[in-house]
């Protein structure tokens, strides 16, 4: 049955596809002639996607291993960390009786690097870089990106950023240690802390490369979506994944340049003696010449990116979840248009809420009111999305496979983390909650764990498209349940710490009697973190094992999905489709439309039948 359907689908493209004469011109293959141009400096979007994903996985391992190290310090401050000496070297100091302790400077460096790496390198580049590259041309019926060359540059700028950041981990003075937000003066004065010198220089250089990478990628994504859709693929027929990547790219393109401006000013302050962000500072009893700057100005510039950034992270995950959920629930996504409009609303609102990160930094309380209101309004489109996901599941013919489990897990995380956002969005409650573990719990659940869940759903779902094989389902399910329970076990107790006022970023609570009874909670969190980290290694093993030894994909469309990427050959080819391009006749969500048929999906390139009514989709 399945193979018959597949043959039928190929025939449709062969007979009714759009002929762009692509394969009559062979000059396109020039850049895929040898090993280096095929796998390393590749201009093919499918290879670039894999490069982003594997680099992202590398950084995810490094970034989360760091969190395990600082969690051990927090949970078990008296235990000896001497066994880490071979890796961390001088950052473990060993006392006379052989007990190794983590150096406080390096604790801060680890926290800073954990944030920077996970936010930028994993959840921005690894998530949106991977799936935008893979899915935008494939799901739109395009041969490749608008500019494959810029696309290649986008990856290599990210690679350069990675190299520079990785190098900074091995500096004698350690990597930057002033928090991932890099607020001045710690980031502006090389003499301010050990990590503020060479560590910060490399940090900022790395991030400038990273901004270039995001912009080059974003320019390509936007141009491809608007210019290279196949015939019949109107905007309102695009899968929600594409809508999400498209809007994400626009947000990135408008907000990352602002961050770049902030970084340029910061570089001037660091290197050329200007005082954009510095004023009246004493270091070691000595007054610095810089006068007249404002550190709050940096915070404005930073958070003008920083807040949209959290949506740059979460929107692609939302798009992936919508798509995966619809496919595996065998139902059209509930409220397609509402989903698109809520993405647009979230994107718009994301630009006018940045000061809610600065309520306690001396922002005028009157102005805070506006930011509170806009922040709380974001709950509306978010709730629309959650309602639609749940409605999509309702009475669906659910396949509870790994991608689907992660998609459902995403919704759970998004609700739990989103609700605490309503607390923190209030400037009055923020007086108590700011800089506590409540904040840590909130953003880790809503954008950290949730975005990871979206990414996992995407990886498990599109792994066959990327590598022609399936990931192991049993390992996948173990991975899911351990991560789901583990993530709640880590972050749920942090809410209680936060409500009791336990401040974030502290190396030790020895001198605070008020927090001493949280020793047990901290131990629990650390143990949960270690177990959850172990589960992620399971994923990594599964991932790399499956690339070479996974179950082979035998049909083109294993999930019986409607979207165009599953009409391409199992082994991806340059130009994506061997002959003509598919022509689109319907939206991406025609699941279970015809109850009398034994096939419960109609791919996008199938022409409408006589009894179907032409709709806008």
């Amino acid at each position, binding site marked *: 049955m399945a193979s018959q359907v597949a043959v039928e689908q190929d025939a449709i493209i062969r007979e009714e596809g759009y002929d*762009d*004469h*692509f394969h009559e*011109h062979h*000059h*396109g293959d020039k850049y895929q002639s040898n090993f280096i141009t095929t796998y390393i400096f590749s201009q093919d979007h499918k290879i670039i996607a894999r490069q982003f994903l594997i680099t992202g996985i590398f950084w995810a391992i490094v970034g989360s291993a760091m969190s395990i190290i600082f969690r051990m310090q927090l949970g078990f401050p008296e235990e000896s960390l001497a066994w880490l000496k071979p890796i961390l070297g001088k950052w473990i100091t060993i006392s006379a009786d052989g007990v190794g302790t983590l150096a406080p400077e390096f604790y801060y460096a680890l926290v800073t690097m954990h944030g920077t790496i996970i936010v930028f390198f994993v959840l921005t580049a690894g998530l949106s870089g991977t799936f935008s590259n893979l899915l935008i041309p494939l799901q739109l019926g*395009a*041969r*490749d990106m*608008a*500019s*494959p*060359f*810029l696309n290649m540059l986008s990856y290599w700028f990210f690679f350069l950023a990675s190299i520079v950041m990785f190098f900074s981990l091995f500096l004698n003075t350690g990597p930057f240690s002033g928090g991932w937000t890099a607020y001045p003066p710690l980031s502006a004065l090389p003499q301010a802390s050990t990590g503020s010198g060479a560590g910060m220089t490399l940090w900022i250089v790395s991030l400038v490369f990273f901004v270039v990478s995001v*912009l080059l990628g*974003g*320019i*390509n994504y*936007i*141009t*491809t979506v*608007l*210019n*290279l859709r196949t*015939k019949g693929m109107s905007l309102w027929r695009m899968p929600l994944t594409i809508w999400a990547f498209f809007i994400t790219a626009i947000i990135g*393109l*408008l*907000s*990352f*340049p*602002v961050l*770049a*401006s*902030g970084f*340029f*000013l910061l570089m*001037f302050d660091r290197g*050329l*003696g*200007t*005082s*954009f962000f510095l004023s009246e500072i004493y270091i070691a009893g000595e007054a610095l*010449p*810089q006068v*007249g*700057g*404002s550190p709050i*100005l940096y915070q*404005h*510039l930073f958070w*003008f990116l920083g807040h949209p950034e959290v949506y740059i992270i979460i929107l692609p995950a939302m798009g992936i979840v919508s798509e995966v959920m619809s496919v595996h629930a065998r139902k059209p996504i509930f409220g397609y248009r509402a989903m698109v409009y809520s993405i647009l609303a979230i994107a718009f609102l994301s630009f006018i809420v940045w000061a809610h990160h600065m309520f306690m930094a001396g922002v005028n309380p009157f102005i805070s009111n506006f930011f509170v209101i806009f922040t709380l309004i974001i709950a509306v489109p978010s709730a629309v999305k959650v309602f639609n996901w749940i409605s999509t599941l309702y009475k669906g013919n659910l396949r509870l496979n790994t991608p689907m489990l992660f998609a459902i897990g995403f919704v759970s995380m998004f609700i739990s983390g989103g609700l605490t956002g309503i607390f923190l969005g209030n400037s009055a409650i923020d007086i108590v909650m700011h800089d506590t573990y409540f904040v840590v719990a909130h953003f880790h659940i809503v954008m950290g764990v949730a975005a990871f869940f979206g990414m996992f759903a995407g990886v498990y779902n599109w792994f066959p498209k990327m590598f022609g094989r399936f990931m192991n389902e049993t390992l996948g399910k173990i991975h899911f349940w351990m991560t789901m329970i583990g993530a709640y076990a880590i972050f749920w107790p942090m809410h209680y710490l936060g409500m009791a006022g336990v401040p974030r970023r502290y190396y030790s609570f020895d001198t605070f009697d008020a927090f001493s009874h949280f020793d047990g909670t901290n131990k629990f969190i650390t143990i949960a973190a270690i177990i959850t980290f172990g589960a992620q290694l399971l994923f990594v093993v599964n991932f790399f094992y499956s690339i070479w030894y996974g179950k082979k994909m035998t049909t083109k469309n294993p999930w019986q999905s409607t979207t165009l990427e599953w009409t391409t050959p199992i082994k991806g080819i340059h*130009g994506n489709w061997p002959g003509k*391009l598919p022509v689109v006749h319907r939206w991406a969500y025609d699941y279970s439309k015809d109850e009398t048929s034994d096939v419960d999906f109609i791919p996008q390139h199938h022409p409408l039948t006589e009894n179907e009514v032409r709709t806008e989709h």
Partner: protein
Amino acid sequence: MSQVEYQRRNKIHPHKFALWVAMASIIMMFAALTSAYLVRQAAGNWLEYRMPGLFYINTAVILLSSFTLHGAYLGFKAGKELLYKVLLVISFILGIAFVVLQYYGWMALYDIGIYLTGNPSGAFFYMISGLHAVHVLGGIAALVVALIHAFVLKFKVTRKRKNRFQLVLHYWHFVDVLWIYLFVFVLLQH
């Protein structure tokens, strides 16, 4: 390149569209800087100074280069090879002249006691005009490519070369208008 050419169904060339998107992001960068300027200025302790006359001349120079480059483009389209080449060279020289004159403008500012490390009002101007000059240098690099095309390739009016020239032209007009915005902004804020 290839897929772009055979897959195009919209009127606008994807490369040109991509350039416009890139311009949008450059605009955001300068919008951020000029709003930072406003915010910092409103906070007081802001040094007022007279803009050296050289910057007015520079503005005229970059404005003129936009006209000559546009003339070169029209000449190219009309098949007037000599006009096209001469105006292209003139635009290139004017572009270089702009950057050099900006440098002398900064020197003139320095001479009247506006230092980079002094009051933020001066530092902001150095920073913003410097970043703009970097973007002009990018435009000059594009002009060099256009010059190579003009003097190495055989003169032929093709759609592909017209598109290529348009990319340079649009970017050059963009940095020109951007400078006029920045300059007028700084003047009005005094």
